[in-house]
């Protein structure tokens, strides 16, 4: 039970680029990926901008040429292929080990659901392509990963809205710790959908052009898409196969606000409870935290509540901890966001560079933290936390540490 759980592979499909190297270079150079949306007509929506994944061919990553996967599965499968390659897992390792697949998402293949409703309206239920129906259950995403890579162990979809990626990573952590799995493919995936655009449009939570977390003039979040996949395994297995180790998953903390379906508890109590759960489980003093990757959506209330909770937790030390939001560059990819942010944390620890919060213009007195404004910072980080807070008050905080044998 004392065996550490380590990160040995990273795969990413994001608006900042495909693959960890391009993603990381763009991240530390403060590149903004938010552009005018080309995938669909945004005329009726408040915002016309988002973080779009550049078009790519799935065949570049997998052999299977016949697939009818939805967009979310395509992103997840491509990111998994990258992560498996990065982890240098050989086909023999894959076929002989117990490998679980745990993927977070919010609405699953909502694009396909949109097509189904469209066909249904026109044909009154007739002639709906079966391939579309099969894509609708959210677990079709981990299933598609399992089918593509011929995996036969546990595979589950985790649905905790915007904290789903961290929830999925936590599940892999728990199941490997419990000895039920040797290795897990964990992360999150999300694709643009009209339903999400409509919902956030109506909630008044979106900014028109750019995402400006913690900045006084912030307007809201910018929607985006992508997938982030991590390969996690027991330290014993990683060392046996001489794998490169990016870092160690120290643990996680989780809670529910039990307050509102869309709003965070204004007192920050839910976030504090998740942090207390984290510190109880990882048994590491909060004084040792070097970096926090904020949830930092760029909405007026959420950023204030997040900072309020962090101030209550860390007191005066909070100003000494760099807290940046990479959503300023990527936008908010919902179920994929926290997984992508976990990848960023692993790379921060690995590379000793903290990515910035871009588009920062002026100080909000209620968000007076060190948000690493506009420029990346070289700094050694031993322990990084990744905050994620989902609709319905689902909070999951992940702790990643530098690996030492």
């Amino acid at each position, binding site marked *: 039970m004392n065996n550490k759980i380590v990160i040995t592979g990273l795969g990413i499909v994001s608006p900042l680029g495909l693959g960890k190297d391009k993603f990381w270079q763009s991240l530390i150079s403060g590149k903004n990926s938010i552009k005018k949306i080309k995938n669909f007509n945004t005329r009726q929506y408040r915002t016309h901008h988002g973080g779009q994944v550049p078009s790519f061919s799935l065949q570049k990553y997998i052999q299977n040429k016949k697939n009818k996967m939805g967009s979310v599965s395509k992103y997840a499968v491509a990111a998994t292929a990258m992560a498996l390659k990065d982890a240098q897992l050989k086909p023999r390792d894959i076929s002989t080990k117990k490998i679980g697949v745990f993927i977070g998402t919010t609405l699953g293949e*909502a694009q396909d659901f949109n097509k189904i409703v469209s066909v249904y309206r026109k044909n009154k239920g007739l002639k709906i392509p079966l391939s579309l129906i099969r894509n609708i259950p959210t677990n079709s995403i981990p299933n598609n990963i399992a089918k593509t890579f011929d995996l036969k162990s*546990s595979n589950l*979809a985790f*649905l905790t809205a915007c904290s789903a990626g961290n929830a999925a990573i936590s599940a892999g952590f728990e199941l490997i710790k419990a000895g*039920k799995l040797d290795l897990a493919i964990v992360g999150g995936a999300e694709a643009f959908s009209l339903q999400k655009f409509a*919902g956030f449009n109506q909630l008044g939570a979106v900014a028109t052009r750019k995402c400006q977390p913690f900045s006084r003039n912030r307007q809201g979040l910018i929607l985006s898409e992508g997938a982030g996949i991590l390969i996690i395994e027991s330290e014993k297995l990683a060392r046996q196969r001489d794998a490169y180790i990016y870092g160690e998953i120290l643990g996680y903390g989780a809670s529910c*606000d039990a307050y509102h379906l869309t709003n965070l508890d204004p007192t920050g109590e839910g976030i504090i409870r998740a942090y207390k759960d984290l510190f109880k489980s990882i048994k590491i003093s909060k004084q040792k935290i070097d970096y926090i990757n904020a949830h930092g959506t760029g909405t007026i209330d959420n950023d204030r509540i997040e900072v309020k909770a962090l101030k209550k937790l860390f007191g005066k030390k909070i100003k000494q901890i760099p807290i940046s939001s990479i959503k300023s560059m990527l936008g908010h990819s919902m179920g994929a966001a926290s997984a992508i942010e976990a990848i960023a944390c692993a790379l921060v620890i690995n590379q000793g560079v903290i990515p910035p919060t871009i588009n920062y213009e002026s100080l909000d007195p209620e968000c007076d933290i060190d948000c690493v404004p506009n420029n990346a910072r070289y700094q050694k980080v031993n322990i990084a936390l990744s905050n994620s807070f989902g609709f319905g008050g689902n909070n999951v905080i992940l702790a990643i540490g530098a690996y030492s044998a």
Partner: protein
Amino acid sequence: MRSFHKGALITGIGIVSSLGIGKKIFWSNFKKGKSGISQKICFKNSLPKSKKAGWINKINFDYYLKKQNSRYLSRSVKLLLTAVSLALKDAKIKNNQKLDMGIILGEAVGTLSTQFRLTHVNQTEGPNFVSPIEFANALNNSMASQVAIKNGIKGFNLTISSGFSSGLDALGYAAMMLNNKRIKKAIVGASEALSKELWEGFNALGLLKKSRQAKNKSKNSISALNSQSGGICLGEGAAILVLENQADYNKGRNNALAQIIGWGNAFGGGAQAMKRAMILAIQDAEVKAEDVDCCFMGSNKDTKQELHETRAIKDVFLSNKKLMVRSIKSLTGECYSASGPMQCAAGALAIANNFVPPLLNKQQNRKSQVINTVLINSCGCDGNNSTIILRRVK
């Protein structure tokens, strides 16, 4: 492999099903072999000719949810909240004990109707007519969040999906979390409601149709279901179990019905994956196949699946001549992710009452007998298989 589930006690059951509302009525009707399948279901303008379903037609939500504003809640959430309130009452959980509880739900199609309405409005009337509340309710985790909000539960909150196996996987995951001492008490289960969209989706997949092949092949199977099987009979309902960590359980309460001692899941088609899930659960529980007294099947009149499961059960329990094979789906219909927890509730009640009811329309021994260990299967047409093992509390 060492076991991780020894500590998860089932201390409360809340059931809303076509077989009855509440643990006592559900068990009484199950014992009698009474069917909850209604013959007259028809959604307005729906296409399928099948009219059979396990529909809950007599339920006064206002009675169960009186203190909660249920006006804007979907049917699946209302079923869920009703089951949660029944389970908490059954487990005698006081209000001040709820705060740190975990909520772990399985979900296969839970918010589908809400997603359909939202998408329909967005397409026909435009985004400015989409209700923000409808959007929040359409998200897959909204059901678990509603349980937390309505009951003031602030612990770990999770929604898991593995298709039809989601409910059993939620139970297995919760048992593991309890044993790891991440949580002390948890509300676990699933809720699914029938809807026109679901009805038509299953019809499009060809799963509601009867086939000649089905009638012929079912004679060779264990036939946990009606021997006239061939095509899924849909159902609806919610099943919630209150799980508690054995280490923190006050034995004076004396209300633990059974304990979860094993969980296994496997992916892949055919009998092999089902067999793997059962073997993993048996290993996890540290029991032998011969120790299992009763098996609740996961098949749902999908003939192919029933044959695969039969073959898997025969392989795993080759030397177990006393094994009784049952399924409550012949009485409740296929309730998707809620079926697993519903079968789990039936298994716990079978252990607590030392009685395994007969199959529907089958003349079998109705005498009481000692039931110590029950295995529950769940298998989806997408290849996800899950197994839970229950044991008498020691």
